[in-house]
């Protein structure tokens, strides 16, 4: 038996984009599962539609933990009331780039940008802030983005 306290769990924030591209909800649940298996506490932040898609898909909360409004998450991080070890930003449009850059500026978390959708390559070219980019041409089929995510394995230590 040891007197050392248990190490505190690491946390990860998933910043959801507009849910109009179908792969987002699927990959978010996949990522949450991987993070939990790696002893990380995932927290989801999105707008009402993006959050509701996840909540309805996981009614017994097998995967989902805390879910919060995206504006509230930005406010809490900016005001230093919350912080996370990792931050995964879902990007398929210009707004997604803006949210990722914001997270990079206000948070000390390690930033991962999941860039997908029809024009993912154009979006990747716009990312000039420190982060790990996980790109894939994925719209309806989540497998290309899952493969890209698996190759980076951001849930690993």
């Amino acid at each position, binding site marked *: 038996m040891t007197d050392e306290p248990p190490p505190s769990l690491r946390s990860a924030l998933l910043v959801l984009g507009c849910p109009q591209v179908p792969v987002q909800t699927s990959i978010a649940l996949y990522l949450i599962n991987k993070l939990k298996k790696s002893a990380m506490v995932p927290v989801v932040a*999105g707008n009402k539609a993006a959050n509701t898609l996840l909540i309805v898909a996981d009614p017994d909360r097998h995967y989902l933990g805390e879910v919060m409004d995206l504006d509230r998450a930005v406010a809490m991080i900016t005001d230093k009331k919350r912080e996370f070890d990792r931050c995964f930003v879902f990007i398929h449009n210009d*707004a997604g780039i803006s949210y990722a*850059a914001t997270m990079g500026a206000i948070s000390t978390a390690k930033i991962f940008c999941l860039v997908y959708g029809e024009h993912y390559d154009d979006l990747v070219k716009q990312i000039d802030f420190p982060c790990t980019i996980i790109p894939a041409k994925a719209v309806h089929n989540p497998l290309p983005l899952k493969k890209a995510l698996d190759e980076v394995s951001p849930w690993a230590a």
Partner: protein
Amino acid sequence: MGCVESMNYEILMRDGSFKECRDYIRQHFKENIDVQPGFKIFDVHLIGIPPIAIGLDRDFIVFPYTKPCHGTFLLRVEDTKEAARLRSLKK
């Protein structure tokens, strides 16, 4: 959306990229300031790629407002106190 929804705002640009909004402010408002993401204006924490430009024109404030599904809007809001507060940041 916070209190922005209840404001009497004018939309100067919609469906633009964040960079287009920043360029518009710098080109059309001689008086402008740069702030960092998360900067609070009214009760809104600004979203964007640093630096974020805010334009000032008398008592009018022009700033980018980003939502995940609708991109970045350029809003123009009249507020004497907030304009004065922003001007004081330049000193």
